């Protein structure tokens, strides 16, 4: 399920190093997302990434991929998802491309760090996804090139020994 290296689209953020790295292409549906996450985690562990950092990547990627399958492709025809993962200078770079609908601008800015905790009966059952993405990524960059969404995220490695 590997594809070509994802082309770099400069959307003003610092570009990721995409090669060498892991490159996957898979359909935007839940079981394929699970398999892709498994492949990413195996690659990270083989690369010496520590369990805490692996957990952070799993959380971020699961949320981003859920957004793609549920909102970008929105229950209609699903489409391909291209995912690249690179490990570079103490950071992990994730790049995702899909052919779904554009991300609404309202979810993109980093949100207030403190979620509101109302009475239990009033608790929201949703909306946690983007909060988790922002909480765990150093920065993210989104752009749309024609019909393609491109999302780049960077995570700082916290518990992985710095590689010389």
């Amino acid at each position, binding site marked *: 399920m590997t594809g070509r290296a994802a082309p770099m689209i400069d959307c003003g953020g610092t570009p990721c190093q995409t090669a060498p790295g892991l490159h996957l292409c898979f359909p935007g549906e839940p079981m394929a997302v699970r398999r892709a996450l498994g492949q990413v985690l195996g690659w990270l562990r083989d690369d010496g990434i520590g369990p805490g950092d692996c957990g952070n990547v799993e959380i971020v990627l699961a949320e981003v991929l859920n957004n793609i399958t549920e909102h970008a492709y929105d229950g209609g025809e699903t489409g391909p998802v291209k995912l690249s993962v690179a490990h570079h200078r103490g950071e992990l770079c994730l790049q995702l491309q899909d052919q779904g609908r554009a991300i609404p601008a309202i979810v993109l800015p980093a949100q207030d760090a403190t979620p509101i905790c109302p009475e239990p009966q009033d608790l929201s*059952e949703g909306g946690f996804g983007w909060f988790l993405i922002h909480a765990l990524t150093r920065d993210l960059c989104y752009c749309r090139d024609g019909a393609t969404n491109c999302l780049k995220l960077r995570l700082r490695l916290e518990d992985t020994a710095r590689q010389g």
Partner: protein
Amino acid sequence: MELLTEERGDTLLVTVMDDRVDAAVAIQFKDRMRELTATPHPRVVMDLSRVAFLDSSGLGAVVAVMKLLTPGRSLDLAGLTPTVAKVFRLTRMDTIFTIHDSLAAALPPGADAA
């Protein structure tokens, strides 16, 4: 989505056997939990020690289960694994739910299995 239930005194123990509670199974999880918790037990304990990963869909489903319980019934969580615990901590849901380090800590001593 495999959920096992067991009665421990006035506590309904629900063991989640799947290793992921995520977008792929969140709806089934919520529906199955609704069925299983339609009992008189005032206390429900959910054993999550076999769950390696839970995303925001899974979190939303656990919140929905808590809201489904009628007033006066409680939902406690036990045995959160590291990544699952991190999701609860980051979203501050660890202040909403009573979370026990282990199943033994969640269950009252001397309450025998049915």
